[in-house]
């Protein structure tokens, strides 16, 4: 028997102890250090810029809020605050940070290996491809999520003045924290969106196998998801409240409003007729903006006294944190599923 002449194989060779997970840390760092250093540099520069802009904004706010309302000098300070860094006020520009950082780091993880053929090296090493990809994705996901979370802390500090209660009374900008562009400018959601972009990029890279198309696909999917979340899903996280009280706080997210009289809902055209005739009746002449606002309030009061009710469907400002965690939670779940799908595809992919 030839088997007898062969040296006995040590038992551990037949079922070798796996290569330790921790070794993937150094491998991941060496392979992705340029991307990670780029991420750190980008977020670092933006953080310094945002901090300087934030100091200016907070300073303007403190000055305006401390000034007794009404004086001309105060009006100037109010205008200064309302106009400070106007391009950042709606948060639209900063929306690109999660998707850019996430997709640019996530998409190449597999796409570059498949594009250049190095997967034939990586997947035939002793560690095995399951450990290899799982460790890599988890480490990189943690890195992008933590850095996005830290940046999110800075963002929520920056936008604080806009959400302070009582701003409206002072004539200062006051926004609901649910404002579409600002809702995810907070640590939980900012980090969760970045993670989702990373996971989308990783899966796109595995499916498309080329870096640039994978990044483009991740951007497109992310944009769709962000619009769906902001435009459709978010208002349904918890059942909205409905109130007949016309004084809804400025922190509330108003979803819809309608009028009723005697239990019947007024149609848009009826409502316009009622408004127009009431205006003619109690405020026929309006000269400027502030008179117009005053007239509008008078009309509302008049209508309320005469049996009309304005109904508001809204999410109260107190639900801000539950909403943050709900959105963070489903994005985290989605990201875990996307990463699991990527790992599964890597394991079963036949070259």
């Amino acid at each position, binding site marked *: 028997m*030839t*088997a007898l002449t*062969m040296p006995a*194989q040590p038992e551990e*060779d*037949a*079922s*070798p*102890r*796996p*290569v330790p997970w921790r*070794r*993937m840390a*150094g*491998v991941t760092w*060496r*392979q992705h250090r*340029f991307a990670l250093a780029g991420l750190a540099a980008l977020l670092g520069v933006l953080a310094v810029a945002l901090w300087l802009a934030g100091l200016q904004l907070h300073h303007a706010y403190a000055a305006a809020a401390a000034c007794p309302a009404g004086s001309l000098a105060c009006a100037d300070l109010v205008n200064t605050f309302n106009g400070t860094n106007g391009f950042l006020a709606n948060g639209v520009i900063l929306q690109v940070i999660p998707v850019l950082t996430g997709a640019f780091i996530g998409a190449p993880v597999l796409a570059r290996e498949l594009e*250049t*053929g*190095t997967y*034939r*090296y*990586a*997947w*035939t*090493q*002793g*560690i*095995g491809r399951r450990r*290899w990809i799982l460790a890599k994705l988890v480490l990189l996901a943690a890195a992008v999520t933590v850095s996005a979370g830290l940046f999110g802390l800075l963002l929520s500090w920056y936008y604080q003045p806009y959400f302070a209660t009582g701003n409206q009374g002072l004539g200062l900008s006051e926004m609901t924290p649910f404002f579409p562009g600002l809702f995810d400018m907070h640590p939980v959601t900012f980090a969760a969106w970045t993670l989702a972009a990373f996971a989308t990029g990783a899966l796109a890279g595995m499916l498309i196998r080329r870096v640039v198309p994978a990044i483009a696909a991740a951007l497109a999917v992310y944009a769709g998801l962000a619009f769906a979340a902001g435009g459709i899903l978010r208002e349904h996280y918890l059942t909205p409240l409905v109130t007949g009280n016309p004084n809804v706080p400025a922190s509330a997210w108003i979803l819809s409003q309608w009028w009723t009289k005697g239990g019947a809902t007024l149609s848009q055209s009826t409502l316009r007729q009622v408004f127009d005739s009431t205006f003619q009746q109690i405020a026929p002449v309006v000269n400027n903006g502030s008179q117009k606002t005053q007239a509008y309030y008078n009309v509302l009061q008049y209508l309320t006294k005469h049996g009309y009710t304005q109904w508001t469907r809204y999410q109260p400002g107190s639900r801000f944190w539950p909403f943050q965690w709900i959105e963070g939670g489903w994005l985290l779940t989605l990201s875990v599923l996307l990463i699991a799908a990527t790992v599964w595809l890597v394991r*079963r992919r*036949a*070259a």
Partner: protein
Amino acid sequence: MNIIEASALGKRYGSTWALRECTLEIPAGHVAALVGPNGAGKSTLLNLAVGLAAPSAGAVTVLGGRAAGSPAALDGIAFVAQDTPLYKTLSVADMIYVTRSLNRRFDQPYARARLAELGIPLKRRSGRLSGGQQAQLALTLALARRPRLLVLDEPVAMLDPVARHDFMATVLTAATDDGVSVLLSSHVLTELERVASYLILLSRGQVRLAGEVKDLLATHRQASLEELALSYLRNNPTEVAK
């Protein structure tokens, strides 16, 4: 022990069979050459053996019955793929670090000594090495894993004659001095003459000949491996038509 055992192994890409009904046993202790024209299914067979591809039919085991691609199989096999893929942006030292980290065994002194001998600087990015140096680096990393089976896919196709000679000399040293079994594919026959002791001839996705070179030469009354392969392919034109 057989380093590779395939039974009715087949691989289909779409509707085309790249490999069909492949039944094969390659014993350990050889430098086994897998030869055949382009598109014969050589890379497919090697990819199946190292676990990069999954069979569409049949089965393949390595190193005495281990499932191809299993942890035990990956642990004992080092594979150098076609065009010797390396991380081009990593330095030679980083490639050593990465390969050492990804494997249970890695003979770092051997790797460093061999690279020094070849004059390959550790600090240079692997993408800036010459083609021959890249092939040597990939081979050194593979051998430093102290594998029991070394699998090479078209290792010298892109190399000039001197680099080719040096590369094959390293492979032969590993096989004769360290007892590593080698399976290498090539469509260039001349370079195999000195090194191969076992031959598998593949054409159009099927095994046409397999056996020890000296037995095959005696049986078919040919003087060299090249003549044997050529005459076999010429005398069976129906099988290699198209």
